[in-house]
């Protein structure tokens, strides 16, 4: 199973699910819905956090949070 944390810069993926229920609710509110395409826009100089493009804007999250987002394909 692939997660968002494995995507490299500029790589795209489609959200397929979440592994953490509490975090999932928060991420969905911010537009990270299953079936949505995301791409990695920025990776902070020290490798963490990252910023993704989702639903037309940029969202930053930590690596460990990206780990809870399952990616298709």
């Amino acid at each position, binding site marked *: 199973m692939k997660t968002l944390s494995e995507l490299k810069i500029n790589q795209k993926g489609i959200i397929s699910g979440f592994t953490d*229920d*509490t*975090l*999932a*609710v*928060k*991420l*969905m*509110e*911010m*537009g990270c*819905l*299953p079936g949505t395409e995301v*791409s990695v*826009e*920025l990776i*902070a*100089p*020290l*490798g*963490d*956090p990252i*910023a993704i*493009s989702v*639903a*037309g*804007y*940029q*969202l*930053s*999250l*930590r690596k460990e*949070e990206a780990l809870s987002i399952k990616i298709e394909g």
Partner: protein
Amino acid sequence: MAEKQGMRVALIGNPNSGKTTLFNLLTGLKQKTGNFPGVTVDKKSGTCKLSAGTSVEIVDLPGTYSIYPKTLDEQIVQEVLLNKSHPQHPDKVIVVADASNLKRNLLLFTQIRDLGIPIILVLNMIDIADKRNLKIDLRALGIDLGVKIVTTNSHSGEGLDALKEAIGQTQAKSKRPFYEVEPLATEVISRISKKFDLENNYAAFQFAQQSDHLKFLSEEEKTAISDLRNKYGFDHNHTQSEETLGRYKHISDIINRNVTSPVTGVASLTQKIDRIVTHKVFGYLIFFALLMLIFQSIFAWSEWPMDLIENSFASVTEWLKGVLPEGVVNDLITDGIVSGLAGVLVFIPQIAILFTFISLLEESGYMSRAVFLMDKLMRAVGLNGKSVVPLISGMACAIPAIMATRSIDGWKDRLITIFVTPFMSCSARLPVYTILIGLVVPEEYVFGFFNLQGLVLMGLYLLGFLAAILSALAMKFILKTKQRGYFVMELPGYKLPQWKNVLLTIYEKSKTFTFEAGKVIIAISIILWVLASYGMGDEFNNAEEHVKASLGQNYSEREYEIALNSYKLEHSFAGAFGKTIEPVIKPLGYDWKIGIALITSFAAREVFVGTMSTIYSIGASDEEEATIRERLRQERNPETGQPVYTQAVGFSLMVFYAFAMQCMSTLAIVYRETKGWKWPMIQMAYMTAVAYISALITFQIFS
């Protein structure tokens, strides 16, 4: 105050939707900041004149992404909306949405709409949407969402009249909710509706979801709701995610029908800037260069307005001394009040410059990149990327900074940030630093363009920052917690700062500083003047004879006056206080006069300067009207004849003020935010100890 039955309108919207700009446009200078009753969330409200000659009250609620709060500040939104008897419960709501990012912004709108409060939807930043070639069919969108839509451009103010007109009109309540939650929890909703007499299903659903956080419910009511949840197997995570998914599905359909966008994705300019600003090398360089620029400008640009203020006060004092009849009142006004007041007002230019930069960083969108850049480093020392905002605003003032820690979720991260923020050099230290640097650091340039005084100032800020980081690191290992914080945050697109917002912030902050700090300083100046001008015992009452005896045979009138004044001061009440603590502060290089200032400036650091002005005006002869800096420079130790303010004393004092918790207001806010005296007391003891030891070491090194 309110005109006949003033309507209350609440502004609600996502962070970065331009809500505050719109609020400023609607209310202009007719706004005030207060507190929501019972909580310390800033409440901004103002009056807005509608075209019909009536006016309404506008309340700016904290920005939030949904009705489910993630931070303490966001809770107020839900509280105000769900509690119908809340004093701030609005008659009408304006939801401000960023037109260029409709999908996410509409989630909050649909939630508020389903609460059944009359509502207007504002599509703000319509200019940006136009620039991105977004085509929005406003008529059809309005019908699909069941709401009156107004488009605005808060840059140009376009659409404002239409919005005012809409506020004046009556909005029909839509009967059908946008998303029906009833099937998610039929039994729970119907029972809560009955118990609390609610007509609205979504409100009842929210009671079920959030009862534990709602302050207006009694413990008994909370238990009743929690029992209902258990009985019917209500899982709030599950229902919330069902609701969110359902709303988004519906929103997506509507957007697909009514909005056409050429390409999705982030604006390219923002992308380009981000690549540079978060670059491995340039990212940190830019961050530190910005900080450097701030300190340099605080010194370089503020010089002439400060001189102007200082000199005008000197002439006012001189004028008053001549005009007023000689005597106690004259002395009290000139030596006590005016010199204390001058001590405050002279720092307005520097405070204005500092706040200009802080609000520019916030407005432009750079601040959240600083958070992004610093998160991992901050986490290494037990802080959080979001601690950057309190730490940077702590350079202005620890009080709003400590309040800003509310955006940090995770109690441990938040507590550590609260604990170390007062180490950041705030604007109240600036007066102390300025005067001491002016005394002991020569005005020279290093490498031709770095102002040496500015560099020392930057060093002091760095010292405070290091103390904050090291203390955080220590606390990281001491505090135990199982709660984890999280870090999901929007990086807003870059915007040109709105000068109106920046100017309002500067105006607001300078005003607060002048009045809040001014009150304390004037009060303390008067008390101090009394304590320094009166005393008890033979030495004070028969000062004339004692001085004459000590001067011997040959002395001029002027020598006598100076000697008399300083003798009287030494034996006054204030002098006695200073003398009492002199043994404790002697190892740091301080005399009893500095001791008095240390005591009074416990109320607030900037009082140090006012106190020094008052003490030295009383001590000096009446003929010479010198500025405080000149007086300090001329001050000699009566025993050795050497200047009192040597480099060793100056640096020792600077270090002391860099670390010591000399601020009652900070203690009060920490008490409020940590809900007890434990943390403010630990904090004060710790900071004072660090200050004392460091000042001691500094004095020993330089002397």
